[in-house]
């Protein structure tokens, strides 16, 4: 096995380990706490009630929607604790891996990335061959694919309602405007 392919497999393995580590930290700090379990159960209960009332825009459905949004926001804040801890650990880990893999071509891309992505995919690599892949690009792709799948497999993924609400933080959440 050549060095480059060994690096490719090693980075996938590192990504799996860091995803499991992140979920482990989140489990210790968040998932196993009674507060989080209670909030999650409440969000699911409210979601089911709203499902039953889905077509009827009534005042009680509006109140229910607001209550659900409130619980989801609390869940997001509870998770923030673990996000800070993970961010801190991973900054240190990334510094270490970056120095280990600095200047190394870890894989060959079967395509030439768009110019604004080349800054990431060809980071700290010599030469003009943009099919050379740097550590950080492969690591980001692995994390994007592996982490969410691990969360779903372990049953730790945030509910779709919570994910939509978190996305709606910058603007009105999907259904809330109807009931305000």
């Amino acid at each position, binding site marked *: 096995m050549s060095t*480059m*392919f060994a690096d490719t497999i090693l980075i996938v393995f590192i990504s799996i380990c860091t995803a499991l580590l992140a979920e482990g930290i989140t489990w210790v700090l968040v998932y196993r706490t009674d507060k989080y379990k209670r909030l999650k159960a409440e969000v699911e209960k409210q979601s089911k009630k709203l499902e039953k009332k889905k077509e009827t825009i009534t005042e009680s459905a509006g109140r229910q929607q607001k209550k659900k949004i409130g619980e989801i926001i609390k869940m997001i804040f509870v998770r923030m604790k673990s996000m800070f801890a993970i961010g801190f650990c991973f900054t240190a880990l990334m510094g270490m891996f970056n120095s280990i893999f600095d200047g190394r071509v870890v894989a060959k891309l*079967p395509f030439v990335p768009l110019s604004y992505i080349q800054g990431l995919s060809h980071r700290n690599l010599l030469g003009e061959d943009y099919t050379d*892949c740097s550590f950080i690009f492969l690591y980001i*792709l692995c994390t994007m*694919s592996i982490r969410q*799948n691990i969360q*779903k497999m372990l049953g730790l993924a945030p509910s779709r309602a919570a994910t939509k609400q978190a996305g709606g933080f910058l603007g009105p959440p999907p259904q809330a405007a109807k009931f305000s």
Partner: protein
Amino acid sequence: MTSSWKRKEEVHAVNGGLKQSTWSKAISCKAVWGEKDEFLDVVYWFRQIIAIILGVIWGVAPLKGFLGIAIFCVINAGVLYLYFSSFQQVDEEEYGGTWELTKEGFMTSFALFLVVWIIFYTALHYD
């Protein structure tokens, strides 16, 4: 008489009724989906499976360039569209429309496809 294979797929619910397992519903035509999240999870995992299969094929062939990415997107979206509109015949409006079903798990499957494609391409054509 119910075969032993079918019996394994069926789980007795608390009220004495029979409840099909998720995967047996996923491969049955026009299955009844009690919970929306259950069907969305099926769509999500089918997307990941397609991503792995296409990543392997593209890496082995090899198929290179943005053509490979474009064909992946078309196949991924197209196959799942046929699955939920023709095979399962779900009411797309219940799930927020065709776009919501198309988006479900798409980015994760795209990243997974790229990783598998890169691994197989590097291993088979650049060593």
